[in-house]
């Protein structure tokens, strides 16, 4: 009898996400604010005159292509992890890592092309800003590479698979974000140089 009249005043479970994934999104929000500050400072500075026209290095087109490809390989390795095909997972991560390094090398080359047209870091803000935007993005990309490296090490120890996806999912999110951030910066520079 007592069992029958058990009171079931059960409130709903609260909405929630995976806390670490959520924290990553918040982290990306703060990075967005960082670059929003720089790009809006860029626009404000440009609007106030005394602006030098700088040609955007052609090599940045190549690096944009490279980072888009690396997003594809990253995604491929995530899908492979979901299917438990570990060799493809590792291969995808290695390709991502290499493409990331190629991207950084190309960015470095772009700085060289800027110097060739006498646009130095120390000079008018019009050229300094390009270095700030590319350099700070590069720093964040290095943090992404470290993340990919950690995931690769974990994949080597068979710690990434279809039932342990959180870390690689976070890494993929972050990597796509860094790629998207670069595309935003590139288009921004093309439109506002």
């Amino acid at each position: 009898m007592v069992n029958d009249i058990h009171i079931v005043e059960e409130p709903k479970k609260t909405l929630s996400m995976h806390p670490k994934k959520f924290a990553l999104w918040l982290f990306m929000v703060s990075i967005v604010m960082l670059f929003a500050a720089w790009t809006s400072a860029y626009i404000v500075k440009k609007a106030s005159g005394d602006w030098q026209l700088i040609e955007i290095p052609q090599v940045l087109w190549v690096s944009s292509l490279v980072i888009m490809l690396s997003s594809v390989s990253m995604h491929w390795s995530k899908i492979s992890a979901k299917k438990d095909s570990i060799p493809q997972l590792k291969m995808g991560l290695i390709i991502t890592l290499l493409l990331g390094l190629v991207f950084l090398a190309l960015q470095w080359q772009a700085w060289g092309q800027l110097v060739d047209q006498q646009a130095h870091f120390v000079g008018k803000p019009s050229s300094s800003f390009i270095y700030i935007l590319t350099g700070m993005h590069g720093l964040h990309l290095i943090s992404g590479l470290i993340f990919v490296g950690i995931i690769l090490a974990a994949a080597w120890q068979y710690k990434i698979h279809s039932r342990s996806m959180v870390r690689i999912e976070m890494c993929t999110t972050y990597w796509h974000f860094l790629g998207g951030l670069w595309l935003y910066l590139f288009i921004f520079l093309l439109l506002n140089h």
Partner: protein
Amino acid sequence: MATADIHVDEGLQHHDDHEHDHHDQNFWTKYVFSEDHKTIAKQFLITGIFWALLGGLMSVLFRLQLGFPDMSLEWLRPILGGWLTDAGKLDTEFYLALVTMHGTIMVFFVLTAGLSGTFSNFLIPLQVGARDMASGFMNMLSYWFFFASSAVMFTSLFLSTGPASGGWVIYPPLSALPQAMSGSGLGMTLWLVSMALFIISTLLGGINYVTTVINLRTKGMSFSKLPLTIWAFFLTAVIGLLSFPVLFAAALLLIFDRSFGTSFYLSDIYIGGEALPNSGGSPVLFQHLFWFLGHPEVYIVLLPALGITSEIISTNSRKPIFGYRAMIGSLLGIAILSFIVWAHHMFVTGMNPFLGSIFMLLTLIIAVPSAVKVFNYLTTLWRGNLVFTPAMLFSIGLVSFFISGGLTGIHLGNAAIDIQLHDTYFVVAHFHIVMGSASFFGMLAGIYHWFPKMFGRMMDRRLGYLHFWLTFIGVYMVFFPMHYIGMAGFPRRYYSFTNFDAFNSFADLNALISVAAIITLAAQFIFLFNFFYCIFRGRKASANPWKSNTLEWTTPRNPGHGNWPGEIPTVYRWPYDYSKPGAEEDFIPQHIPYSETPESNLPHENDLVRIETQDGDAIRVSDQGTEE
């Protein structure tokens, strides 16, 4: 394959458990590098108190100069040494350093880290019903980044060239050129390093607070049942996440200008008749970036205090908070508006007057949510069964400051008046009352109210009353006369007024302010004694000394790691069921289901019980009393 996977998972699980065991044993991991949110909160609190004392002492030093310009400070030579001139007076540059460090310390180290760091850390997991923060490790890092930042800032006080001296707003070119003043040398570099560390600490903390509030709430704790403290901490953290990166961006460009020779903020500057190579930059750009953080920062400082006050006033009025949803709405409104009013700090920078009027309009709109909050505080107090605990007195003090400081905000928000009053003591009076003192009172109220939960003991009430009255009267004695001095035209940050005939007649008023400041600071030692004495010797607290509804009072007297020894309580009702008609006691905590309180349930609450029992054998609430 499957077994292998399970094995791996178990291995990970085991690893985690092993780490946890480790934490409980070792002194270093328990009290120093702790990952427990309660310990981290206390670390923030103690560090904040240290900084508050230092910042307060600095303010008394420059008040001595302003109130008694002829006084010899020779007796301070053992502490100040070379910062005194041969005549025994404060060095002029040191005066600027004092003002700068007082501002930096109070705004960032006391009222941001000390207030949010303490109470967000302490209360979020306890009030939403979580075992700990989303990431204890990040939380620990947050404190230790703050500690490193504090250490760097503290070191800068002992430099022979002095700490940063360009004002807490560090406007270039003053802060960008080491030639400009001695404090813009190494002192400014350390200031920037310290703030970079501080921003990392704030972001780590803020990410944790937001994640915890959204994802780790206990069963039943919907957003419409969250205590207003949590709403305030949550929105504060969101504001911080959006605005601190912008300060970081601004500071980084300043670092490049200072140390690498770029010209983001510098252009056409001549020093000693010689032109600097920098060209093309704009110092106003820095002001835009700085105030995009700087204004939300005001609310980062104030919102937690408002949240704490809402909770304390409702508990001690023994009444539900008036307009719970309006309170949330006004917090949201303030949070959103805080991002679109920054240029009201810049009315005199040569900004387009049309733009100025837009920012003026937006600024004045903030008066609406602020007035909603004041109205709701007063209507909550109205005809309540007021219990005047020290925490309650400090909360009422906050409301008083929020009104009197808010009214002058309406003056200053108008560009036409602000151009007249800009950079005078009127501004100083305004923000010290509405932001400084109000938030400080919120912090003190929080300490008095949650001390029993933090340390398991009570603070002494009588000393609390004495502390309150001396501080409350002291604050008004300090800042009220400042309005007159400001209207008379006294500029901020001036070392001395004795050379100006126009200002001589206010010498006695300045002396009065200084005496009041000294008394107010002295009163804080009553608090310090009370605080530290009662940690060890205070009367032992009962589990729920204020008869409060929120979840933290359902924990044991000294909650251990994980907060609740058994299961985390489930939440059934909002946190403000005080003096509910029909109820046996004048409070019903959040974890009491409606089915246990048939005598006080409202019709729609009874419906809730019925719906919830439908899956089993549906029973009537009225039957239920006899069964149990």
